């Protein structure tokens, strides 16, 4: 697979095919592992970092479940390509900085992504469309079993998998669910819900993970605790919380449709109107408006636009994606024009 092949492909997290896809974009599990005795990436010298890279690349190539994976060395990618991978949620923003001895491995479906020499020697994720951590677990658990046959991980009986930051020790597992919660935001209940989540040791982030703001009413909810609970238990806890939030969002949507229908219809159709007619538009405004259009699709107020098409626009309107589509570097002003063009062509009925 070549990096450009991804352009004609819909990311797993945007397919809108999984359970509860009207509210949940995607579910993701990420495992952090390190090789025994070798210094962690930030503390390793060049020779050690290269050794880690070779060892892990070698292991990936031997594993049957990873035979459709392509490895990209980050030092060989340009800045647009790196940003493109971040926008597709295939690697972190951190991984795109200082790229020596780093790699990312991606499978053809973009369901599996493996970061080598990020904060830990190896961090691999499995992403599923909709609310489906269970399926993600089945897949990632097998990958982990296979990797642990090829590599010796740093592990202790009492503290589990050892990670560069003690906040990830234990299972080394982080589960994240990306939710679209426009009705909870519009009915001003979101702060209460997020405060409750924080009290239960879960974190909320924006579309692009750590340090990003919640835009377009998208919220990524993850477990904070990774030691002292089994993987099963952690997934059970996340599922319990997510189910509650889905119920709350559904209730808020019902109330809006039954009691504030005119307001909702106005917001949804104005948003669609701007997207269909704008000639210059920023990515921030695009995401806010797309969120409203998605809500329109999910509540049946918009019938002639497919949810998946709206989902895809969340990502194809991002800066690196626009530059990949145009196949050249674009200034911010040029992007705003191209973005408006792209949206108009995709929403034409």
């Amino acid at each position, binding site marked *: 697979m070549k990096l450009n092949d991804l352009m004609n492909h819909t990311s797993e997290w945007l397919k809108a095919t999984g359970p509860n896809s009207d509210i949940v974009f995607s579910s993701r599990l990420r495992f952090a592992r*390190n090789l*025994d*005795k*070798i*210094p*962690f990436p*930030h*503390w390793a010298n060049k020779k050690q970092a290269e050794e880690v890279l070779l060892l892990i690349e070698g292991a990936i190539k031997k594993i049957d479940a990873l035979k459709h994976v392509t490895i990209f060395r980050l030092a060989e990618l340009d800045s647009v390509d790196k940003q493109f991978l971040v926008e597709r949620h295939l690697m972190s923003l951190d991984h795109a900085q200082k790229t020596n001895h780093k790699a990312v491995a991606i499978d053809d479906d973009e369901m599996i992504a493996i970061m080598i020499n990020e*904060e830990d020697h190896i961090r691999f994720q499995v992403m599923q469309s909709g609310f489906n951590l269970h399926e993600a677990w089945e897949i990632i*658990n097998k990958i*982990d*079993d296979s990797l*642990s*046959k090829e590599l*010796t*991980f*740093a*592990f*202790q*009986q*009492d*503290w*589990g*998998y*050892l990670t*560069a*930051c*003690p*906040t990830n*020790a*234990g*299972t080394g*597992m982080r589960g994240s669910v990306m939710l679209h919660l426009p009705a909870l935001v519009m009915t001003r*209940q979101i702060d*209460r*819900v997020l*405060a*409750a*989540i924080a*009290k*239960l*040791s879960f974190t909320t982030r924006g579309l692009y993970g750590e340090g990003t703001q919640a835009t377009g009413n998208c919220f990524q909810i993850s477990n904070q*605790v*990774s*030691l*002292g*609970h*089994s*993987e*099963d*238990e952690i997934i*059970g*806890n996340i*599922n*319990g*919380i997510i*189910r*509650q939030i889905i*119920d*709350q969002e559904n209730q808020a949507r019902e109330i809006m449709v039954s009691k504030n229908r005119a307001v909702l219809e106005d917001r949804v159709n104005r948003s669609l109107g701007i997207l269909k007619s704008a000639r210059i538009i920023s990515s921030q405004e695009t995401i806010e408006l797309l969120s409203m259009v998605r809500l329109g699709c999910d509540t049946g107020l918009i019938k002639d636009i497919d949810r998946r098409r709206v989902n895809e626009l969340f990502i194809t309107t991002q800066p690196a994606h626009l530059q990949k589509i145009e196949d050249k570097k674009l200034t911010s002003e040029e992007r705003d024009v191209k973005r408006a063009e792209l949206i108009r062509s995709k929403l034409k009925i």
Partner: protein
Amino acid sequence: MFCDICGKNAATVHLTEIIDNQMNELHLCEECARKKSEEMEQQFGLSDLLAGMAELGKPVKEKEAVHAKCANCGLTYADFKKIGRLGCGECYDAFRKYLGPLLKRIHGSNQHVGKVPGKSARVVKPKTNDLQDLRTKLQLAVEVEAFEEAAKIRDQIKEIEQKQAKEAQEK
């Protein structure tokens, strides 16, 4: 309207509380509401969860800690405090006595439960899975004021607990 508890200040906070399936509305002043909400949190065990996070463990002798060094990678405890990252897996052994309390503070526990390399994760399965799941749900339901739901979950928890107590007695 005056506060239902102190009867002195104006009621600005309106609380709903469920006791034995009876829903009570309370109209309280800010001061009494704060006390009341602390009380409610305690009833629902949230404070236990938070206390677990805050437990600092035994105070560490600062000087001794700063000079501790990992023999495998050379990282000192002072380095760790500066960068917030450990140097290698062996550091966990080198700084064991300082990291134990820290892990407990971060995760509320310092005993790994879960996967072991080369073994299937399903092997280590906690017995209290259902109960813990329900308690998490209950906490969230209370936090978002879904009280009817909370009452239902609370009854389910009671049922399981009673069953477990009975089983324990029989043994």
